[in-house]
């Protein structure tokens, strides 16, 4: 009996082993899109949009990889895709991945089998992947959409080789947001200078309200404060020079910025390193626990029903020679095309459409969105009051920077670089600033040449 069962068991095991090998070889490899890989419990499931009736020319299907997993931006992406599907006669399948997961895996995603079009950010963040050869130049798309853009937008969309790689769709300014009803109730007025700002802060503290909310758990929100203080105190050109490595962090001008920031820190919410920006937005815009919030206007997406009550003003002037520059951060988001798309014609058709003012308006007029279209020809009649305010602010603004983590190189601005340094500063603003800035400069110089 033993002689009969033993060979049967062996051959069953061998067959099982062979089957396991075959299954593992056939199954999705490491190059699957980020939506296929295991992510934390908070990740959103992939979404796809059923195509509407297509127009005359049918160029086929294309795919879009998107990192907008929160409800309102996700609906906005669906809105622009719907518009462009109808107008350009294409079908676009949207693959949404959890926001942070998408960004963490972007490098391996682009090197694998990515979607044809990817929603991404302008500035160094697109330049890096263009330089690695992971994106297609889209000068032919730009030939058609250039009429709707400005020279500043074009500059933010170019790679280091001078070719265009990016189609901008919307941007949003970094401004100080507040609840109008709270200001009316307590009799606060909008401050224009730093003195008025600190006086307002003192008044708010006396009323038991935290003057400025801050949530720096993700590491990047604090960069906005640094950017604006640097641009106000040292000028736009110095700031961009610092981002691009032409100026040094050990410059006394930079030290002055951090000293000023340390002076203003008592007005910011405590415990910032442990608070997400969403919680800080809730504290300022929903719960009225904080009086003001300095962030991009995308924070309005967290305000819910209170969004119509939110007003904003540019960060106050500091009384320096650069006040007239009216500089501010206004990061641009848009789309880029990967190096080897499955359907280049359909992808380019989508990009051409996305660069048009009507498509941009379709995105930003989606409910709850705080950003505005980049094109000067965009029709602003359907904007919310906040968006009209946005567009006005941007028009009146002089110089627009992209934001620290898009103007500076990614390995410097990331978690091992500036994110960690700024958290260190927030934890201990009274530390030796010479050593602190020296560490930053040494780290910058240790990075490999680009």
């Amino acid at each position, binding site marked *: 009996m033993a002689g009969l069962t033993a060979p049967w068991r*062996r051959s069953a*095991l*061998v067959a099982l*082993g062979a089957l396991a*090998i075959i299954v593992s070889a056939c199954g999705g490899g490491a190059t699957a899109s980020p939506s296929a890989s295991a992510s*934390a*419990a*908070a990740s959103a499931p992939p979404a796809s949009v059923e195509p509407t009736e297509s127009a005359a020319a049918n160029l086929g299907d294309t795919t879009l990889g998107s990192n907008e997993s929160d409800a309102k931006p996700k609906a906005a992406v669906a809105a622009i895709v719907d518009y462009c599907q109808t107008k350009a006669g294409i079908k676009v399948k949207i693959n949404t991945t959890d926001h942070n997961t998408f*960004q*963490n*895996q*972007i*490098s391996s995603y682009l*090197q694998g089998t990515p979607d044809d079009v990817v929603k991404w950010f302008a500035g160094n*963040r697109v330049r*890096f992947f263009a330089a*690695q*050869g*992971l994106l297609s130049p889209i000068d032919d798309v730009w030939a058609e959409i250039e009429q709707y853009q400005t020279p500043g937008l074009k500059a933010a969309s170019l790679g280091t080789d001078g070719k265009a790689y990016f189609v901008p769709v919307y941007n949003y300014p970094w401004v100080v947001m507040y609840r109008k009803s709270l200001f009316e109730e307590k009799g606060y007025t909008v401050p224009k200078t730093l003195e008025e700002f600190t006086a307002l802060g003192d008044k708010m503290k006396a009323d038991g309200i*935290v003057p400025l909310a801050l949530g720096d*758990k*993700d*590491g990047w929100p604090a960069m906005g404060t640094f950017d604006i203080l640097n641009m106000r105190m040292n000028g736009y050109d110095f700031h961009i020079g610092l981002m691009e490595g032409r100026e040094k962090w050990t410059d006394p001008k930079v030290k002055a910025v951090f000293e000023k920031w340390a002076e203003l820190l008592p007005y910011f*919410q*405590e*415990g*910032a*390193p*442990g*608070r997400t920006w969403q*919680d800080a937005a809730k504290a300022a815009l929903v719960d009225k*626990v904080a009086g003001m919030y300095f962030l991009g206007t995308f924070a309005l997406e967290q305000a819910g029903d209170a969004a119509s009550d939110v007003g904003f003003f540019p960060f106050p002037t500091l009384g320096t020679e650069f006040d007239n520059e009216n500089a501010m951060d206004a990061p641009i988001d848009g789309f880029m095309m990967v190096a080897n798309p499955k359907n280049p014609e359909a992808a380019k058709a989508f990009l051409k459409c996305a660069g048009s003012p009507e498509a941009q308006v379709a995105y930003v007029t989606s409910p709850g969105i705080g950003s505005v279209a980049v094109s000067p020809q965009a029709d602003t009649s359907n904007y919310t009051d906040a968006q009209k305010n946005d567009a006005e602010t941007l028009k009146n603004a002089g110089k627009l920077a992209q934001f620290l983590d898009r103007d500076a190189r*990614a*390995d410097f601005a*990331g*978690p*091992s*670089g500036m*994110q*960690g*340094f700024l*958290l*260190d500063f927030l*934890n201990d603003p009274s530390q030796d600033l010479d050593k602190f800035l020296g*560490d930053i400069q*040494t*780290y910058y110089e*240790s*990075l*490999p040449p680009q």
Partner: protein
Amino acid sequence: MTDRVTRSASTTPPAPAGGVVPPPTEKRKKRYSLLSRRDRITLWLMAGIPTFLVIFFILLPTAASIVLSFTSWSGVGLDKIQFIGLKNYTDLFTIYKPFWPAVSHNVIWLVFFLTLATPLGVFLAVLLDKNIRGTRVYQGALYMPVVLSLAIVGFIAELMYAPEQGLLNNLLGRTAQGNQISWLGDRDINLWAVLVAASWRQVGYVMVLYLAGLKAVDPALREAAAIDGASERQAFFRVVFPVMKPINIVVLVITAIESLRAFDLAFITNKGLNGLELLSTLVTNNIIGETSRVGFGSAIAVVLLAVSVGPIIFYLVRALREENE
């Protein structure tokens, strides 16, 4: 003549019942084996395929990481790898600010597990070995965190430790603005908060391992100890504990590996920033995403490998030595 005799003898299998393999001679061409051809092919496949997988998925990437740690590379395009010698290592030890905090946090993690989590697990195992009423319920309850993935444990920890709505702050009555304890945000205490969450899982893990070992201890030993008048404590430390030496070693090695492997909780909480730096999070932050400093990240990984190899070698040496005894 003798050759022909031995050669012809080798074609017919011998009859000895014990299956003794006759000693090979120099002229023997065909190896003598009890295993049939099919058996041998099966064995080669069953041993060979896992070996191939280990070499391909573990050893080759490890070797590649070691090689890459001497380069500067952005991760895209094999032709762009540049060799820069020891620069990554010197930068790591002198310039890179999070490195030494990460090393100290890994050491703290190891010491915490060795002195608090693992002994607690052992203690619970000894208690549950007494077969008190409801022992199965306790075992199930204590083991359940082990079944949860560390990502879920991280999520639960975030809910417990949330400054305004978390359980802990609400129990302590410190939820007002300005009076909140930021368990995960304050860099002086967040490592300990995360360690407690990690221990919640480690205690159950160690407990089950030790319980299994305790069940295998010969009851005659305990009876002998009881007859000799030993107290509970003496019986455990003088009799049971020494007998459990193989299990003790396994538990020690597992503790060391789990603490060196610590990553998920710190990364889920805040990507390993602000007091939760660990060597593993440093590797991830340097390689994944847009940072893409593959050479530098590989250098950190090689440091982690060098540190991890210690307990593994220790374990292997002991295991092989015991085999030879």
